[in-house]
């Protein structure tokens, strides 16, 4: 990318529109966000800006008087705002307000809805690859229910009958746990809030789901979790990304090999690594794997959107993703997120 001066942007209005713009612009290269102004200190955009360590203020004039400002985006909807901005803005700063701001706002919101639908579609397509694993894990306890119930029919001893009934109850509990896990995972994510998430907990949850991706399970799993790894993220999105990466790792090993899940923190950065001892990715392909619709799977087996979505989820949650791979040795994905301070 050519080395150009970033466009310095201030956002006025911390409502839904301001928050979406903030999330979008904070990921765009070449944009430097100066801050957000809103008279309501509890506005979602203000809270989000604080998470991102941006300047927040309830005083619009303060923010737009900032020297070197290139663009003022006004999504307050306040009819008095244009006059106020014109009066106080530094020379050379442009204003995006009124119909122009509304158009951008609509486009951002539309894009955000589409992306949400894309995540959901790809997640549901992915669940298809768990079908055999889920059937297996439900059919086993179902067999216990049937077998123990058949035994009860022919049993006369009350103590034995009670023991067998107890076994049936346990088997039913196993089945309901599986169906609960999957309906939770499959539902459309409704939360649009960034909350404190323990990365280790999400990684463990993702591993439980991704395990269903293999039929002949013969994996050794190494877990090396350190610290609490508290980060700010949307929990459902993060889970989706982690399930995706672990599923890929398991599938790359064809069910046999070592899966290593590790977390560590260093210099305010939480790092997750997901490594496999699978087939690896050739050098020439590493560039392509994050592109939409790139897949090495057979037609109908993959959407080609998995890693593309993982990358955009990680980006939206202010993280970074990188990958190293060696053909025949395996692949390692590394995710890094800004660490949250421990809650006091």
């Amino acid at each position: 990318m050519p080395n150009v001066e970033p466009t310095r942007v201030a956002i006025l209005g911390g409502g839904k529109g301001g928050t979406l713009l903030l999330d979008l612009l904070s990921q765009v290269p070449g944009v430097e966000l100066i801050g957000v102004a809103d008279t309501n200190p509890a506005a979602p955009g203000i809270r989000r800006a604080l998470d991102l360590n941006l300047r927040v203020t309830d005083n619009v004039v303060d923010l737009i008087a900032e020297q070197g400002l290139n663009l003022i985006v006004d999504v307050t909807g306040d009819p008095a705002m244009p006059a106020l901005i014109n009066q106080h803005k530094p020379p050379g700063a442009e204003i995006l307000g009124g119909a122009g701001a509304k158009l951008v706002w609509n486009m951002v919101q539309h894009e955000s809805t589409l992306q949400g639908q894309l995540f959901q579609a790809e997640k549901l397509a992915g669940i298809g690859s768990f079908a055999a694993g889920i059937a297996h894990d439900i059919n086993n306890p179902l067999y216990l229910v049937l077998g123990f119930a058949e035994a009860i029919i022919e049993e006369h001893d009350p103590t034995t009958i009670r023991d067998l009934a107890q076994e049936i109850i346990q088997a039913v509990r196993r089945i309901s746990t599986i169906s609960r896990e999957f309906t939770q995972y499959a539902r459309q994510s409704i939360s649009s809030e960034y909350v404190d998430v323990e990365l280790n907990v999400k990684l463990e949850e993702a591993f439980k789901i991704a395990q269903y991706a293999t039929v002949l399970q013969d994996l050794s799993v190494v877990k090396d979790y350190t610290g609490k790894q508290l980060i700010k993220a949307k929990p459902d999105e993060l889970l989706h990304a982690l399930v995706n990466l672990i599923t890929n790792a398991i599938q790359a090993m064809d069910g046999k090999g070592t899966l290593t899940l590790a977390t560590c923190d260093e210099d305010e950065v939480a790092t997750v690594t997901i490594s496999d001892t699978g087939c690896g990715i050739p050098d020439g392909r590493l560039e392509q794997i994050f592109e939409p619709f790139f897949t090495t799977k057979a037609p109908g087996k993959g959407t080609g959107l998995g890693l593309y979505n993982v990358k955009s989820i990680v980006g939206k949650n202010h993280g970074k993703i990188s990958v190293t791979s060696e053909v025949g040795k395996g692949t390692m994905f590394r995710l890094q997120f800004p660490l949250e301070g421990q809650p006091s």
Partner: protein
Amino acid sequence: MSESGTDFLFGTSTGNGRVMVVDDEPDIRKVVRMTLQKAGYDVLEAEDGEKAIEVINTGENRLMLDVIICDIRMPKINGVEAIEYLRKEYPNVQLIVLTGFPDMDMASSFLRQGVVDYLVKPVAGEKLRDSVAKAMNQREIHRL
């Protein structure tokens, strides 16, 4: 309930036939044991393919084991590998697959290899006993 057959070395024989159930889940083995003991079979257990191979290579089992009921998804040596070994080393021992996977491709591949039945859990006791009876008949034919 009779505990005959728990000792895989010197299990007391009922004379109706000896079956080994290979499954990593103890409760599944328990259900299979209850189901088959009701029909008078001796039942041995193994928790994975590796253990199954050890059991069949031990003492009189080499000669006395008639039927093996084998799960697919197991640690160490899985069902696919175990069945491949048993087909080669013990072609007269009859095999029944009992699995949670309703997988047609896998089923037809096993049946082509000469497996007697591919049963998907949950399977009713009656059906499992029929399947074992069929396997015992084929075992008799092989003995002739």
